[in-house]
C-alpha cells in the first residue's frame, strides 16, 4: 500500500512536470524547424527575439534572432510555420500591440505567383514607428505655429 502511494505520488509529480513543460512552457518535439525567412529593417524599435509573427492577427511563427547586418541594418530571422505558402512580394512590418505594448512582426501577403523558399529574404519591409520621434515631430510642428521652424529650415 505504501509503495503504491509513493508510485502515485511520483507519477503525479512527473505529470505536473510534463504539464508545465509542454502545455505552459510551450516546449514542443518539433523544435525550431519551419520556414526560416530573413527580413532587413532600418529600425526595429524594441523588437525582441521570440516576438510573434502574425498574418491577419493570427500567430504563425516567431522571431528567432536579431543581428546587425553588414550594411548596418537590422537583420531579423523569422521562424514561420512550414505549411504556409507566402508570395515573394510579401511585406513584413513591425507593429505595436496597443499604444505601448509589445512589438511584433506582421506579414502582408502579396500577389505574385512565385513563393518564398526557406532561407529567402523578404524584400519589402516597413520599419517600426518610434513613438518618441512621432511625438518630437508633433511638438516641433505644433510649437512653430504653422510657420517654418528654424531648425527644420536648416
Amino acid at each position, binding site marked *: 500500500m505504501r509503495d503504491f502511494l509513493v508510485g502515485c*505520488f511520483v507519477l503525479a509529480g512527473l505529470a505536473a512536470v510534463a504539464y508545465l513543460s509542454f502545455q505552459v*512552457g*510551450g516546449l514542443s518535439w518539433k523544435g525550431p524547424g519551419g520556414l526560416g525567412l530573413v527580413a532587413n529593417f532600418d529600425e526595429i524599435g524594441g523588437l525582441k527575439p521570440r516576438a510573434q509573427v502574425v498574418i491577419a492577427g493570427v500567430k504563425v511563427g516567431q522571431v528567432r534572432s536579431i543581428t546587425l547586418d553588414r550594411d548596418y541594418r537590422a537583420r531579423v530571422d523569422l521562424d514561420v510555420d512550414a505549411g504556409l505558402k507566402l508570395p515573394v512580394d510579401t511585406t513584413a512590418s513591425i507593429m505595436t500591440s496597443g499604444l505601448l505594448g509589445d512589438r511584433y512582426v506582421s506579414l502582408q501577403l502579396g500577389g505574385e505567383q512565385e513563393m518564398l523558399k526557406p532561407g529567402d529574404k523578404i524584400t519589402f519591409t516597413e520599419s517600426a514607428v518610434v513613438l518618441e520621434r512621432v511625438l518630437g515631430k508633433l511638438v516641433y510642428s505644433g510649437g512653430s505655429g504653422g510657420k517654418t521652424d528654424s531648425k527644420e529650415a536648416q
Partner: protein
Amino acid sequence: MTAVVQDLGWLAVRFVVDLGRLATFGAQIVRAAFLPPVRVRLFVAELFKLGVLSLVIISVCGLAVGMVLSLQGYNTLVRFGAEQSLGAVVGLSLVRELGPVLTALLATGRAGSATTAEIGTMVATEQLDALRMMSVDPVDLVVTPRAVAMLSVMPLLSALFIVCGLFGGYLVGVGLMGVDPGAYMSSLRSAVDFRDDIVGSFLKAIVFGALVGLIATYRGFTATPTSAGVGSATTSTVVVASVTILIFDYFITALWGV
C-alpha cells in the same frame, strides 16, 4: 572592547569550521549515494515520509496562493484595463518564485524538521553508536536515503504546487472575476518560457532540495544527545534552511534570470 572583538572572531571561526564540516558531510553523502549498496527500500520509505505526507499541505497552500494571487492581481490590473494578462501575472509569479521557494519553505517545516528530529533522536538514544559498533556507516544507512529523497522529492512537490496554484488562479480569475478563459490561458502560455522560466524553476527546486536535505540531516547528526538538544537542532534546521533558501533564491535568480 577587546572582548567584543574576540567574540566576533570566535563567531567567524566557528562559522567557517561549521561550513567546512557541512561540506565534508555533504561529500560523504555524495560518495555513499554513488557507491553500492543501493538502498532502494529505505529510499522508497523516505519518499513516502517526505513526499506523500507533504502532499496535503503543498496542494492546499498552492491552491490558496494561486487564488489570492489571482484576486490581488485582478484588482490591480483592472485599474489599467489589463485584466486580460492576469494569466501571465499568476503564471510567472508562481513558476519563477513562489512555486520553488514556498515549496522549499513548507517542506523545510514539514519534512526537514521531522528528519532532524528523527536523526537527532537516534543520536540521543545512541542508535548511531550502535550502528558504528556493528561497523555500519550511519551516513550510508541513515543519512543518505533521507538527503537523496529530499533532493528528488522537491522538484515534484514544486511542480505540484505550481499546478495547484495555476488551477486556483484559474478558478478565481475565470470563475469568480469573469476573465475570459481563452485570454487567461493564452497570456499564461505566451508569458511563460521553457528555458528561462520552467527550467529555472526546476533548477531552483533541485538546489533547494539538496540544501534542505543537507542541512536537516547535518543538524540531526550533530545534535546534542539530549531531549533539549534535539529540540534546538530542529529549530535550528528550520531557521538556517529557510534563510539559506531565500539567499540562494536571490543568487539563482540573478545568475539565471534575464
